[in-house]
């Protein structure tokens, strides 16, 4: 019974081992060029210390919203890809419709200029 979980145990060991090895070996043999930017918690993010009431562009919200929209819809494509053959023509037609509806939304946001930053 428990033997069935052996592959999962192996996967966990390999994953943890890979992570540990990368960290250990890169700190042992990797070159170290320390700079203030490199030591900050988020190398390419916001300043981590300072006032929390900073204003930033509303465009981020729009991009985030569009990302979530299309990202969530893309998630539906994975199960279809797995069951592609079993679902047959019915699945193809249904997903075709789904993608067409998605595409209408995409054309709309594109033409409205929501994807342009400036």
């Amino acid at each position, binding site marked *: 019974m428990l033997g069935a979980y052996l592959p999962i145990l192996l996967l966990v060991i390999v994953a943890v081992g890979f992570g540990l090895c990368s960290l250990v070996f890169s700190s042992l043999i990797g070159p170290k060029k320390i700079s203030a930017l490199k030591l900050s918690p988020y190398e390419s993010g916001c300043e981590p210390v300072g006032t929390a009431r900073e204003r930033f562009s509303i465009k981020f919200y729009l991009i985030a919203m569009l990302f979530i929209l299309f990202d969530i819809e893309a998630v539906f494509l994975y199960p279809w890809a797995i*069951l592609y053959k079993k679902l047959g023509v*019915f699945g193809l037609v249904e997903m075709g419709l789904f993608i067409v509806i998605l595409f*209408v939304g995409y054309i709309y946001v594109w033409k409205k200029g929501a994807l342009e930053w400036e």
Partner: protein
Amino acid sequence: MDMISIPVVNMTPILPEIFLSVLAMVLLLLNVFSPSGKKSYLAYISFIGIAATAVLVGAGWGGHIESFSGAVILDNFATFFKMIFLLAAGLTVLISDQYMEREECNHGELYPLILFTVVGMMLMASGTDLMTIFLGLEVMSVSLYVLAGFNRNNKKSNEAGLKYFLLGAFSTGFLLYGMALTYGATGTTRVYKIASVVGQMTLPSANIMLLAGMLLMMTGFAFKIAAAPFHMWTPDVYEGAPTPMTAFMSAGPKAAGFAALLRILLVALPTLQIEWSQLLWVLAVLTMTVGNITALRQDNIKRMLAYSSIAHAGYALVGLVAGNGTGTAGILFYMLSYAFMNIGAFAIIILVSKKGETNGNVMDFAGLGFKRPLLAVAMTIFLFSLAGMPPTAGFIGKFYLFSGAVQKGYIWLAVIGVLNSAASVYYYLRVMVYMYMKEPTEEFEWTQVTAPVALALIISVAGSMIPGIVPSFILEFAQQAVKLI
């Protein structure tokens, strides 16, 4: 290789929904690809599309088709309500263009959004699964939130959109929790299966989970139909939203809420009728009284009609408390005539008010009877119908609602309803007094009546009068519609 068995799906029941959705998407693309400027052609296409859908829906009258393994149904009940939604949307489209042009917010997205709202409402009326009903409600609500805040240069419209969204999302939580509890108690979300499971319970009224589910679902729908004490959003949203959208909101979604409430209470939970009719009795009395008494003190006419629309939800609830053939047919009849008279009244308000939603007080109607006698006559008919005076549609509607209650022995409820109706005459007559007995305080240009608005007014006047003079024609349809559920 084993194939997944694909269920045989009969698309006939949702053909109108599919047609409208496709039309809405086409309009959305037409709008972005056409140069900015006049958007009137979108209104015309929408109107023709809505009329075509009405033909499609009407062709299904008398049919009885279940589809999607019992999640959607095509029956007379759904068909009747779909006709009300299409009517409300058609009239709204007719009165929108001129208003949006004047308020300088004539964005083409208006029409696809109205069509999507109709799709949602149609799904609510034809859904026989709690999930379908919920999905329909969400499609309707999300579009409505945008429509309420459509005039984005107007602060009040923004406020209306945000308020509607926050409170609407909150009430959706109640509804969904109620559906979850009902599912927990019965093990199914299919409305007809819930009925048989509850019917087999030895003592369903002692099943706390089921009762809580019913209560929460009723709360959610009471919010959508703006019944007191869940009406607090109504005045602010109705006042702030663009006037054509207020007209639409008070006619369409209110009817959709009643459609879903009727389907769930009468089909799924008839065994609990004693329980829910007691609750609705209190709700109906509160709604009528709060709506009418608050409306007495309003000077802004949109706000006044918002409170009046709360009161009208109360009258319709009287029919549901009765729960018999006369009462429920009365609700269908009333929702139809309410769509005519209310959208008609709002169309007149659009013509009287000025750019930036100014000039919207009862006092601004002063002298309308002398300057624009035809408009004043139309407004008088709408107000008489709203007040429930014979021979208008409003009178016959109220007559059936209250006589349904009397038949079931709810004498006091009918008495309270009639008293409320009498009180409401005051604030409707007040507008008429200003129209016919006062001189206008200042001279100004009256807005021109364009052809689409004139058409909407003619349809509304006919719809407020004809069912009042020959009620049997529409009532027969309404009675056939409630027979099957």
